[in-house]
């Protein structure tokens, strides 16, 4: 058994920032990651970091833009914390040596991005995430923070009181990918989940194959609700054949979208008469698919993104990486021809429900970054708002887990007297547990709450049994088959345009996937670097997470932000200014709602019509 004060799971931007903050607060912190830190998917972020740095800009404008972008489903205390802290955190990165792009006077460069009233997206070429990731990993090396790389966290060591609000998290169970050894990691103060997004629930995604929603699924099964999971961002400019991301920076610098008729459709068809290509991402993604649906798509599949008019010099200076991506992954030279693009799953606005300090309703369990939902992004995340979220809320989670006092949070978590139960939606199939659960769910033995080490030990044993079962089984279904079926269902039915019938169909297929998973087995008999085993466990996580996305998409019968419903094409503020929460409830999921907080520090954000 390993023991540290704070265990950070995942080593992308949020995890690294949490670890540095916990270390600076004096805690003995360790990172446990299924990759090596520099392999984390933060490295693929291209565009930049929104921060009100310049004179003429201020945090209140950033907060307003973010709230409007969220379609009034962001919680004001979270949104304002982000906007207030982003400048300091961005400058801090600069002092850690991050190679930002520069202006002539030597200050850091900022550019326009979708949905922003001021050009406040701070960038380092079109590879901002790469530099942010490496800069923070350098700081982790500098501080001598312990990193257990290529250790896959399978489960949380959480107590099993009936009410999740009474539970405590004492550590994690992980297996060493290289050797197959399963060990407990005791966390004396807290566990911070920073495991990134669940993009692999879809089959056309900009996300890495490692983005399997592990943290979401583990926290969910441990009792922390998942919040607003129906809000999935589809990025308007991904390459059609691979899903590789073409940064919004291209449009920020002046790139133009054309349909097959050569029309600049964002204006010609009135999708966004003021902002055009730089409208919010959900608006542009729907516009593209509408064009394709009405027969004005190229090859009936995509539209064109043209940046040729920007000129070689400007492109090489600010968007060089885009040229390489278009060339290597689509065989297109962005200097001489337009690039084909279509919407691709990109980001999950929802996640593990946390407060401003990163804490879930389970004591000692924190989450930060894409796996968490504070909620900053509400119904739709603005480009350039993910990276500041990582550093602002990663830091706060690390500090709080290390024992620093950050004040009383305004955001509440867990089931409580301020929530409203879902009552009137009929589900086509029962969600949740299928048959015998051998997958490390809470309350495996319904037993007594033991001391921290006892809880951890019991979880280690459960994990070992689970792996033995998967490895001993001689035949059955392989994870790849189930995963492919799940991904296809999500992309077919829970995509940009959603119908009640389609989402119900998805829930039925997810149910089938659950049942097939009862018969899953691992063919590779080796304990050495068994990726077959790891992917099998990840697939279970994907099933749980995909189900919450589809459930949220079914119950929310309105159109808000990235969530569009065919039968309900209007935002319903009287009914839906509330977050969707889904709780695992030991295998029989329940749905409830918590009102959104629109009262900020100095003002109340009144919902307005969202036009760009």
């Amino acid at each position: 058994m390993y023991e540290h004060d704070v265990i950070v799971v995942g080593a992308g931007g949020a995890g690294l920032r949490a670890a540095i903050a916990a270390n600076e607060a004096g805690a003995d912190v360790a990172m446990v990651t299924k990759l090596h830190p520099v392999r984390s998917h933060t490295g693929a972020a291209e565009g930049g970091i929104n921060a009100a740095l310049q004179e003429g800009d201020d945090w209140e404008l950033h907060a307003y833009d973010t709230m409007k972008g969220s379609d009034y489903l962001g919680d004001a205390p979270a949104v304002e914390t982000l906007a207030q802290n982003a400048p300091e955190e961005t400058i801090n990165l600069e002092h850690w040596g991050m190679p930002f792009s520069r202006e002539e006077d030597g200050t850091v460069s900022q550019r326009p991005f979708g949905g922003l009233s001021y050009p406040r997206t701070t960038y380092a070429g079109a590879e901002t995430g790469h530099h942010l990731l490496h800069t923070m990993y350098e700081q982790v090396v500098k501080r001598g923070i312990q990193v257990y790389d290529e250790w896959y966290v399978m489960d949380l060591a959480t107590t099993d009181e009936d009410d999740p609000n009474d539970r405590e998290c004492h550590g994690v169970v992980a297996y060493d990918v290289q050797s197959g050894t399963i060990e407990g990691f005791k966390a004396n103060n807290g566990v911070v989940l920073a495991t990134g997004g669940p993009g692999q629930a879809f089959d056309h995604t900009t996300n890495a194959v490692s983005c399997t929603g592990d943290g979401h699924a583990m926290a969910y099964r441990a009792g922390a609700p998942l919040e607003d999971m129906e809000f999935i961002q589809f990025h308007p400019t991904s390459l059609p054949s691979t899903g590789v991301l073409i940064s919004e920076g291209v449009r920020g610098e002046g790139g133009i979208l054309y349909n097959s008729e050569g029309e600049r459709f964002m204006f010609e068809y009135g999708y966004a008469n003021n902002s055009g290509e730089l409208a919010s991402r959900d608006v542009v993604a729907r516009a593209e698919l509408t064009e394709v649906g009405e027969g004005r798509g190229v090859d009936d599949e995509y539209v064109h993104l043209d940046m040729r008019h920007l000129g070689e010099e400007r492109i090489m200076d600010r968007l060089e990486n885009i040229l390489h991506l278009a060339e290597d992954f689509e065989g297109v030279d962005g200097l001489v021809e337009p690039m084909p693009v279509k919407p691709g799953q990109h980001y999950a606005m929802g996640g593990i429900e946390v407060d401003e300090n990163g804490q879930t309703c389970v004591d000692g369990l924190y989450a930060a970054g894409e796996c968490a939902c504070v909620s900053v992004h509400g119904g739709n995340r603005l480009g350039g708002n993910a990276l500041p979220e990582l550093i602002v809320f990663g830091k706060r989670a690390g500090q709080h887990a290390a024992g620093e006092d950050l004040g009383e949070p305004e955001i509440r978590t867990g089931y409580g007297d301020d929530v409203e139960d879902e009552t009137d939606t009929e589900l086509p199939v029962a969600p949740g547990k299928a048959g015998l659960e051998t997958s490390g769910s809470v309350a495996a033995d319904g037993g007594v709450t033991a001391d921290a080490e006892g809880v951890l030990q019991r979880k280690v044993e459960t994990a070992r049994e689970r792996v033995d079962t998967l490895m001993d089984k001689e035949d059955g279904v392989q994870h790849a088959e189930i995963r492919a079926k799940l991904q296809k269902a999500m992309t077919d039915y829970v995509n940009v345009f959603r119908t009640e019938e389609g989402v119900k169909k998805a829930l039925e297929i997810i149910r089938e996937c659950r049942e097939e998973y009862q018969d899953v087995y691992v063919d590779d008999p080796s304990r050495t670097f068994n990726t077959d085993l790891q992917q099998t466990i990840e697939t279970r996580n994907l099933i749980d997470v995909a189900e919450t996305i589809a459930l949220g998409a079914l119950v929310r019968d309105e159109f808000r932000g990235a969530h569009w419903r065919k039968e309900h094409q209007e935002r319903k503020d009287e009914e839906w200014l509330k977050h969707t929460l889904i709780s695992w409830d030991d295998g029989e999921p329940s749905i409830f709602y918590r009102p959104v907080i629109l009262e900020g520090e100095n003002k109340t954000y009144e919902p307005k019509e969202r036009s760009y």
Partner: protein
Amino acid sequence: MSTQQAEPESQEAPEDPAMKGAESPAADEQNGGGMVDEHAEKAAELEGETVHIKVFRYDPEVEGKQEPRFDDFHVPFEKGMTVLDSVMYARDEYDSSLTFRHSCRQAVCGSDAFFVNGKQRLGCKTQISDLEQPVRIEPLPHQEVVKDLVVDMDHFYDQMHTVEPYFQDEDTPPVDDLEEQRQSQENREKIKMSSRCIWCGACMSSCNIAAGDNEYLGPAAINKAYKFAMDDREGEEIKEHRLRILEQEHGVWRCQTQFSCTEVCPKDIPLTEHIQELKREAVKKNLKFW
């Protein structure tokens, strides 16, 4: 840990005409037989072509894999298919024990550097149609093989850490100081290429000097040091400290300018030039002191 290395002509899997997809002795009928035929047929209808890949296999624990061998797979070709796509397909459809690292699929995580047809390349950014068949896919040479295409990266990471790979500031400003350090566009441009390294290890694997001298810092670590040494935001004193680390016995002077690292770098970093420039900087520094 084993020290098995990929031998160019080791232990070929016998051809079995009955199996169109996986010809590996490890792939049994139940696992792939029927499905393989089906996929191969579909592909034949669509594209009429499969790609023949020969993949290095080794697992210290599994009988039949303890001696390194090559398995043959015939993967249905699709436009835009990369080397990574081909091994992913082989794994998902034919043999789930086929093991390799991969994550982002877009040449930024640096996980999937392999030795492909005799050259270090990133699997995800190498179009398979550009390669001569059969495409031979092996783990990076000069590193211990953990399993199949997975090599032990610890030595690579150790060398990266040796050069103090973090920004060192002479006077760190107070946290509440909202002023960035100034850096000229020219200086940012100067360090741009060096900052693109994704730690894939291709350069180190291609370097003859690193193969013969285990303590040689290697191109990636020297390039990391270059990024900081050339950054005007770090002071002169720190630059001298960095040059002292680099001119040690196993540092920059080991490089014999063979350019193999530069040739294989998937991010087009002029590694050899950076090493040469640091040699000149080291000479200048020493002249100053003498």
